[in-house]
């Protein structure tokens, strides 16, 4: 017999933990500590950062520790997720509510794929498509844990199917656009294109100078070390500009969607969910602009990564209500 409360607490703890791991990952990447331990899962074969490896391999201790701390916390997150999935299994058997199976399946897949990506980040020397997936994977774990939490908290929704087709289409579109912009953000970071353009709002790059072909080449050549980025200035500026335009398009869409919901809905849950999307969206845009105009200070850059996680969370949260709850409750 598992009590709903135990499962809810476990999920909340895992969710918070994953948020922290995202922050650690961002910090590791932004302090260029990603390759400080060339092997995985140990550091020069050791569990801890040992003095011998520091001396013999000229390892920067603070960077190696950043990398290892990220791995320790990620490892413990994996254990927390396994525990959550175990208790979730018991809960499903008990309540016979099978709705959490979809997000649980996603989480299980991520539990396997994300550590592999972590390993390849190191062995493939920061190959952009790998690091991008690793970043998105972290966000996906965070969001999936919340998704399961939503399902558990709102079991009652699944007994009545919501009919709002139009709203579900809009919500799906919002999720798709969000995913694209998150990808662009990750791509900007992993290709070291964040500081390629210190002018705001436009880069000194005309559309015909832009190098789309190289900017978005997803394939890879092995043996290359991608630390610091290997793309030309033009390609990096192209990535930066596309990310900015993406913010304009996706930001406008998310803003219009949530503001419309606040005006149209009389359901408190919907209005609250829309409110948080607006807050995180505005903060994320401010942080993005601050990254450019303040020349990407470490704190602002880490916060931009964490705020992206919160924006993703709130968007998925609102989308959840669009799919399962009633926009207008009958008086």
């Amino acid at each position, binding site marked *: 017999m598992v009590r709903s409360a135990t499962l809810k607490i476990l999920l909340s703890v895992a969710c918070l933990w994953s948020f922290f791991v995202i922050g650690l990952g961002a910090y590791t990447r932004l302090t260029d500590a990603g390759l400080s331990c060339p092997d995985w899962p140990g550091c020069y074969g050791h569990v801890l950062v040992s003095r011998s490896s520091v001396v013999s391999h000229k390892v920067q201790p603070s960077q190696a520790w950043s990398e290892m701390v990220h791995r320790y916390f990620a490892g413990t997150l994996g254990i927390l997720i396994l525990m959550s999935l175990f208790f979730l299994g018991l809960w499903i058997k008990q309540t016979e509510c099978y709705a959490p199976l979809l997000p649980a399946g996603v989480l299980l897949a991520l539990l396997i794929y994300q550590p592999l990506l972590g390993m390849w980040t190191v062995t493939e020397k920061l190959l952009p498509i790998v690091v991008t997936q690793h970043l998105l994977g972290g966000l996906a774990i965070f969001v999936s844990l919340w998704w399961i939490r939503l399902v558990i908290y709102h079991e009652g929704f699944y007994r009545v199917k919501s009919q709002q087709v139009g709203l579900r289409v809009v919500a799906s579109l919002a999720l798709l656009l969000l995913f694209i912009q998150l990808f662009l953000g990750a791509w900007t970071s992993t290709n070291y294109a964040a500081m390629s353009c210190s002018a705001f709002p436009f880069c000194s790059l005309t559309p015909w100078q832009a190098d789309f072909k190289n900017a978005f080449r997803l394939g890879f050549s092995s043996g290359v070390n991608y630390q610091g980025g290997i793309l030309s200035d033009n390609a990096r500026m192209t990535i930066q500009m596309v990310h900015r335009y993406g913010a304009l398009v996706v930001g406008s869409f998310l803003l219009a969607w949530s503001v419309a919901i606040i005006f149209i809905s009389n359901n408190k849950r919907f209005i609250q969910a829309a409110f948080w999307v607006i807050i995180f969206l505005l903060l994320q845009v*401010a942080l993005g602009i601050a990254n450019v105009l303040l020349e990407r200070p470490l704190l602002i850059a880490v916060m931009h990564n964490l705020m992206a996680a919160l924006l993703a969370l709130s968007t998925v949260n609102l989308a959840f209500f669009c799919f399962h709850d009633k926009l207008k409750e009958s008086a």
Partner: protein
Amino acid sequence: MQLEVIKDYVELCKPRVVALMILTSIVGMALASSGAISLKILVLGNLGIALGACSAAAINHFADHRIDRFMQRTQNRPVAQGRISTFNTVVFAAVLGILSMWILMHYINFITALMTFLSLIMYAGIYTCYLKYATSQNIVIGGIAGASPPLLGWLAVTGQMDPMAWVLVMIIFVWTPPHFWALAINRFDDYAKAKVPMLPNTHGILHTKKFILYYGLLLLAVTLLPFAIKGSGLIYLLLSLMLNAWFLWWICKLLWSNAATEKRIARKVFNVSIIYLMLLFVALLLDHYFIV
């Protein structure tokens, strides 16, 4: 008819609150400048900050338009009464907000625009839509937003966050609880009807009176800081001590009042708090420009 409409839109901006904020921002600018404040910064900086504050005030009117109807103090507000539509209010707020950001980014500097923006999110977003209903410490935490104008003025001049700027912010931050809690005692029934968890409603009026005193004493300590860090001199010290004595006298009167007189005295404390802050910042200004 036209004049009534203009008056309503002006009311959306909470002009008296914004005016007090701009006074504190001007003082921030003055203390940050050696000599006279640059005219461009004085006018355009304060215009940008004021427009931002007005935008936040309009969002507050929008967010609170339903509960404003329950409270005697706010029931005649434009959006609560339907004289201005919710849609127009949001558009008005958006226009003011964008204008504010543009002026600050174009004529002042980015850091001022960023901190102004964050203050607006804190007040119009976090405080108005969430904190207010979440805890009796709502105005304590949310007070950081209203305390920011001296820092914004300082940033407009120097682009840097110096200790003196934060001291000014702290003064307003510590002043905010006694200011609002006095009002909350006076408007006890209003907040009860609106179901907003103000301290008198959640912990009782006596508890609130005591905490107003504690914060009043803390305020005395904090207002000594400008002198202690050598940002201000003797003129400020003497004036601030006199003002603190005056404020604390009325806070004590509130503490000693009984159920028959407490609401009237609470209103007086609220009014005293406003004049106190105004004169305190004027004292900072006088001290800065007249060296003994």
